[in-house]
């Protein structure tokens, strides 16, 4: 097990390096001279020159990458072109609400997704199954921004129960987390169902029945564990969906998170902020999947008992 953990952790290091390099290249891939972009339209040639030197844009590209990485390791993501506030500072105040929102969404999606999936599998081809799967396929097909707008219309405009946006109180988290988690809940429900249905067809389930175990013992004592192990992996992959969705949902609800900052920055062409956001989002995703991998290894005796 220890070897497995070390192997996984070492395994993501090259990925982190490559991803950071690609994100670093981002600013060079944008058409035009980055120094000119940063300096603004009215800048003189001299000003541009100064910025180029200040940002080390006159150095060889590999050198620039090392400088960039050095900055990253010290928590320096550069500074915003528009507001000239350090990017770290801009993102820092947006990070917490975003993380809270994603954990909240993931949490309810997991709980309800697994619940619906288990019910559907246990009552396969009966009405709880049909109900669960109609909910799930709808959940996958719902555009999250539309779900958000419909909820705003209903709960904020018509009924006035919840605020239309912001993260000032817990009430501000309710609708965004529903809009964000709906699709993930649906995916997890479908996957849990199919995994559990598959497990219930295994030979060892028949062995269990032949020993006189009740259906409850068989489903919850035998089948659930082995069918939830792959759900862990799927939940990890869904996290990417969640990060992407947060950009859209945060925009709908004017939620002060990282996602909305990204869209705002793109519209303002504030590239250093965009760059930092892309890096943080992808690192977050990689790390979540690392945790998921480790969890998978821990739950699966075939891995955890080897070595």
């Amino acid at each position, binding site marked *: 097990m220890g070897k497995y953990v070390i192997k996984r952790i070492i395994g993501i290091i090259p*990925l982190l390096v*490559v*991803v950071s390099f*690609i994100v670093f290249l*981002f600013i060079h*891939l*944008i*058409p035009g001279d980055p120094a000119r972009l940063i300096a603004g339209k009215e800048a003189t040639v001299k000003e541009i020159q100064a910025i180029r030197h200040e940002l080390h844009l006159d150095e060889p590209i590999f050198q620039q990458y090392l400088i960039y990485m050095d900055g990253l390791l010290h928590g320096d993501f550069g500074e915003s072109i528009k507001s000239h506030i350090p990017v770290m500072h801009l993102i820092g105040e947006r990070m917490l609400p975003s993380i809270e929102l994603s954990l909240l969404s993931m949490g309810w999606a997991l709980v309800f997704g697994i619940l619906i999936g288990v019910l559907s599998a246990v009552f*396969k081809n009966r009405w709880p199954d049909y109900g669960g799967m109609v909910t799930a*396929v*709808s959940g*996958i*097909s*719902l*555009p*999250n*921004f*539309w779900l958000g*707008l*419909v909820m*705003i*219309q209903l709960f904020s*405009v018509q009924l006035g129960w919840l605020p239309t946006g912001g993260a000032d109180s817990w009430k501000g988290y309710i609708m965004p987390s529903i809009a964000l988690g709906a699709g993930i809940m649906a995916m997890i429900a479908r996957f849990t*169902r*199919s995994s559990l*249905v*598959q497990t219930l067809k295994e030979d060892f389930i*028949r062995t269990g029945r032949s020993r006189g175990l009740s259906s409850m013992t068989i489903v919850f004592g035998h089948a659930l564990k082995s069918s939830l192990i792959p759900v862990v992996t799927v939940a990890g992959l869904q*996290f*990417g*969906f*969640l*990060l*992407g*969705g947060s*950009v*859209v949902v945060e*925009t709908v609800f004017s939620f002060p998170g990282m996602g909305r900052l*990204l*869209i705002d920055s*793109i*519209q303002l062409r504030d*590239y250093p902020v*965009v760059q930092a956001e*892309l890096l943080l*989002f*992808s690192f977050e*995703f*990689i790390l979540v999947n690392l945790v998921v991998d480790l969890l998978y290894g821990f739950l699966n005796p075939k891995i955890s008992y080897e070595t």
Partner: protein
Amino acid sequence: MAEIVTKTDYMPKSRGKLRSFCAAFIHKKTAVASFFFFCLLIILALIGPSIVPYNPQTPDYNHVLQGPSWLHLAGTDEYGRDVFSRLIVGTRLSLGVGISSVLLGAVAGTILGLISGYFGKWVDKTIMRICDVFFAFPDILLAIGIIAILGPGLQNVVIAVAIFNIPSFARVVRGKTLEVKEMLFIEATRSIGATKSRIIFKHVFPETFSTIIVYLTMNLGTAILAAASLSFLGLGASPSSSDWGAMLSMSRDYMGTAFHLVFFPGLIIFLTVLSLNIMGDGLRDVLDPKSKD
């Protein structure tokens, strides 16, 4: 245990592949209904502009922001344009973006996946490592990053969505190829002296084909959603176009007063994606029964 019956030594009646596929698919009533709905959308995309009741671009300032009525089934927008007509005309745009981006991604991804899965070794390692890098960026964020570089616009949405589809197709096709490659009949074909290219194109690819079709259908839904999201964020279709996502984006300003402007474009996106997902489920059950529940 159903094997007890199927494994017995008997010969089922001879039946054509296509016929048995159709017979099995017909049993999935919802899938068939979705299939017809999707066909309707395709027809609308093809002939929509010539059958709409109103010109989708002509403003009518006498009927601004009207709710749904018999005259205007889905109401009118802030310029008095008929929303129903705009939705129908927008079908071509919204479906077109989804279909072209998924097809692009599917073709490139399938080729990469086949190569990777069949040749293995360093070829496989290289392709899969590159895919891993793409997977490190969550789908929509990758698209947003690409659009940030290329600039907003429908064409760039197609490129961005195609790019995030490539690695996922590559991975799925590779997985299936590896599975097929281990099958005994592939080894049997090698043992009669068949060349690698013959094995890939005549034997492995047809086996992976049904998986690709199912995955294509499902991803088409996702792609339409992604393109709509990007247009909604103002990164895709120009706000004045009749793209569904763009229409939604524009109508946000009229939330309180004209909710139908938000409701109908979203509804049509939802129904389109729903029909694709149901169709995909049906196809999977029929074509790829092993991956079924």
